[in-house]
């Protein structure tokens, strides 16, 4: 009796599994646009979608970074204006630490608005179990 030939799907399953693991590790790095750790506030609302954006990070120590490049507060308007020249409708995300003063964040938002940003969002994180 002639035996039926089976397709060996073990290598395919292994490759699939490895791909999933690689995606799990790489995806957060690729999609957050910044490596600077900031403890952003929790919020249930999630309005922003994953898209190309300009990320302004304001840490608890008072450091200000635009797309992971540290700048002085006085340079913020100039840097943002240069970036917005490429795309005026670019989403500007302000990632501020939850413990900073709101007035400091307002200063950043005002500078961003002043140079013509059309879409501004405050970065938040979804609470666990949401």
């Amino acid at each position, binding site marked *: 009796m002639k035996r039926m030939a089976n397709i060996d799907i073990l290598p395919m399953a292994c490759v699939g599994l490895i791909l999933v693991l690689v995606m799990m590790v790489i*995806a957060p790095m690729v999609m957050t646009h910044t490596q600077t750790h900031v403890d952003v506030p929790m919020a249930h*609302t999630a309005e922003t979608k994953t898209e190309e954006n300009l990320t302004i990070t304001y840490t608890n120590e008072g450091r200000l970074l635009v797309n992971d490049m540290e700048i002085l507060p006085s340079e913020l308007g100039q840097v943002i204006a240069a970036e917005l020249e490429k795309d005026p409708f670019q989403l500007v995300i302000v990632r501020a630490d939850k413990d900073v003063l709101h007035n400091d964040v307002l200063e950043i938002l005002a500078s961003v608005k002043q140079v013509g940003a059309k879409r501004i969002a405050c970065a*938040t*994180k979804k609470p666990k179990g949401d």
Partner: protein
Amino acid sequence: MRRHRRLKFEHEPQGLILNSLVDIALSLVIGFIVTIPLFFESGIFVNTPGVAKAGASDVSDIKVNIHLLDDGSILLNEEIVSYERLAELLPELLARSVARKVIVSTDANVRYEQVVTVLDLAKQKGAGQLALLRSKR
């Protein structure tokens, strides 16, 4: 001799059982899908009208002004309310408002987290637009 051959055929390996492997892979994918919103940051769109405008607006609409004080108190249209009461009143006010705009202002030493909590609550209760008011210095 014939019996020996049959036994040999019965013990021939039947191939690997992939069910458990596929199950684990599927569980990982589902876990990945479920946990991904926790890894990624999202955001709330805000508007910054700049300095506080003096004078009344031309359009008559229900106003939703929230002011956060340094001591943690919340003022909703000039009245002190608790966070729970704010959550109750916001939907009522927003339902009667055309623009569904919530304006949030703060004292000088309010933490950013408190403001985002209020913005988040306003969005959850149906606010269409959020504006952060910056007072003139």
